[in-house]
């Protein structure tokens, strides 16, 4: 059952992956004139007819004469060489035409560079004349980040689905004993779920900002999507509080149990025993090496997200243009990496492994689950007398394929 589900999901995710790659290769983010908000109401022509156009041209010519004597009003009028192009061009052609003036105007062009000057206005950034790296940031975000992120998330999901199809659910070999032991107390669980809910909402609202324009806006229309995006931005900022508190409490509560030990290396070398149903699970304390990796990735990744996010909440307070652009890039890349990691974490905590979800939901895990997955912790519990040394009498052996 789980395997079939994994197989179907794998096909879906691989299709999405291929679609993302295809879109990444064929799409162009070159901006073309649209004469109005895309998908919005009527076009917004500013001066549409030939007369309006001629007036504007004439006024531009008026700017020529100042500092020298202008032409006599009675004199011969200069004919306007406006070089009008036929109307009704395709937007792409129009952009091509604009760009095609490069050669003709190359004598006027300077080298593209960062130019900073001085101004009486408050705020350091207003003294910057030009920062051409803004275009670099835009190109990186709109191409590598957007499509790389899509490939990464669908790729992780596809790998997990393939793994599920190949390996199936990791089951409790000896079946459930019916005897349970406390793994996480109510305080740990409450904190975990506060952080988890914050993270999921942060991820979803972040995805609305990064991908909504291409994936959601066409369905909702400009105004409804703008409201959604606006709400998402608000929620995204507000959630920094529970998320940061959650991270901090998590660090205090679990750091001692998550320090790397020699046994973790052994565990990793044996792949955590996930490889096949036959291989035995390597010994692990309360947190195995996989969980320690998740713990540290969440603590470190979360800290990077909070730090870069705070920086984005106070733009230009500490950093200049490049700093803000790098901040945004670090924030979005870390966010995407964390989403992939958490997808894996959710997988193994729910569909991936039988009995694992209870650890964080009810807080109590089955005796046999503890024995199989965290043998060192199990031995410890036995030693401390929190579990009886022999299996419960009513052990039911339930084995399903």
């Amino acid at each position, binding site marked *: 059952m789980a395997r079939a589900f994994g197989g179907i999901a794998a096909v879906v995710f691989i299709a999405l992956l291929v679609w993302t790659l295809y879109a990444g290769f064929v799409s162009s983010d070159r901006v073309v004139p649209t004469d109005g908000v895309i998908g919005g109401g009527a076009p917004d022509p500013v001066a549409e007819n030939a007369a309006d156009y001629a007036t504007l041209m004439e006024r531009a010519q008026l700017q020529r004469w100042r500092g020298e004597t202008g032409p006599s009003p009675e004199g011969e009028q200069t004919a306007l060489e406006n070089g009008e192009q036929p109307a009704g061009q395709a937007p792409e052609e129009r952009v091509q035409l604009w760009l095609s003036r490069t050669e003709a105007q190359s*004598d006027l062009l300077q080298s593209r560079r960062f130019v900073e000057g001085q101004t009486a206005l408050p705020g350091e950034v207003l003294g910057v004349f030009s920062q051409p790296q803004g275009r670099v940031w835009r190109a990186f975000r709109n191409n590598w980040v957007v499509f790389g992120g899509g490939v990464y998330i669908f790729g992780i999901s596809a790998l997990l689905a393939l793994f599920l199809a190949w390996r199936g659910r990791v089951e409790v070999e000896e079946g459930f004993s019916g005897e349970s032991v406390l793994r996480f107390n109510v305080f740990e669980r409450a904190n975990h779920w506060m952080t988890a809910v914050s993270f999921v909402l942060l991820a979803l609202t972040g995805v609305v900002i990064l991908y909504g324009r291409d994936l959601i806006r066409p369905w909702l229309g400009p105004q409804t999507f703008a409201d959604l995006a606006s709400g998402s931005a*608000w929620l995204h900022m507000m959630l920094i509080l529970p998320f940061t508190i959650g991270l901090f409490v998590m660090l205090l509560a679990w750091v001692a149990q998550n320090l790397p030990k020699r046994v973790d290396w052994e565990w990793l070398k044996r792949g955590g025993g996930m490889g096949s149903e036959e291989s035995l699970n390597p010994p692990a304390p309360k947190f195995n090496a996989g969980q320690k990796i998740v713990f540290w990735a969440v603590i470190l990744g979360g800290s990077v997200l909070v730090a870069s996010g705070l920086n984005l909440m106070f733009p230009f307070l500490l950093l200049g243009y490049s700093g803000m652009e790098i901040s945004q890039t670090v924030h979005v890349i870390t966010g995407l990496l964390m989403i992939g990691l958490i997808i894996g974490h959710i997988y193994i905590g729910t569909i991936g492994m039988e009995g694992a979800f209870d650890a964080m939901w009810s807080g109590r895990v089955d005796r046999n689950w503890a024995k199989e997955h965290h043998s060192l912790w199990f031995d410890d519990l036995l030693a401390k007398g929190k579990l009886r040394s022999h299996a419960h009498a009513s052990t039911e052996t339930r084995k399903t394929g």
Partner: protein
Amino acid sequence: MARMKFLCDAERCIECNACSVACKNEHEVPWGMVRRRVLTVNDGEEGQERSLSIACMHCTDAPCIAVCPVECIYQNDYGIVLHDKDLCIGCGYCFYACPFGAPQFPQQSNFGSRGKMDKCTFCAGGPEEPGSEAELRKYGRNRIAEGKLPLCAEMCSTRSLLAGDGDQLSEIYRERVQRRGYGSGAWGWETAYYGPRTGS
């Protein structure tokens, strides 16, 4: 078809700030926001000092439009870059992408939103009925619809700041350079209008 551009003749700008004041007054731009500003580069260096007036340059392949998460910014057939304030969520991305620091926000900090972005409209208003109260309130005066060019350029006392069709402006500028024998080029044009194609 015209391609509207700004050109600031750095050899003529005397840093009088009339353009920014005219803009602020014409469009009743709120306190703390400047659609057009004047800055001085190489201040105090003999022979190198230049003053420049800068606002939105209405770029070709405009980066602000490309990064806007709600697609509220757009460009019209004249090349003028406009935006819809009803859709703007105030995320500030356009400011990171803009090569010229044109977008302005009512709020400095970003607690959910920096408010509705405001920027130079080339005196072309915005997506509202031209000349309407709503347009005036949100985007300022629509001079283009009246057949007039941006006020900053029209009232520049030395004709340093020029606005109009790009080809015409470059002709005017070339003529000047020829007469006086010097000129430092069209500041910002490379980045604004030919950024996507030349250099790297």
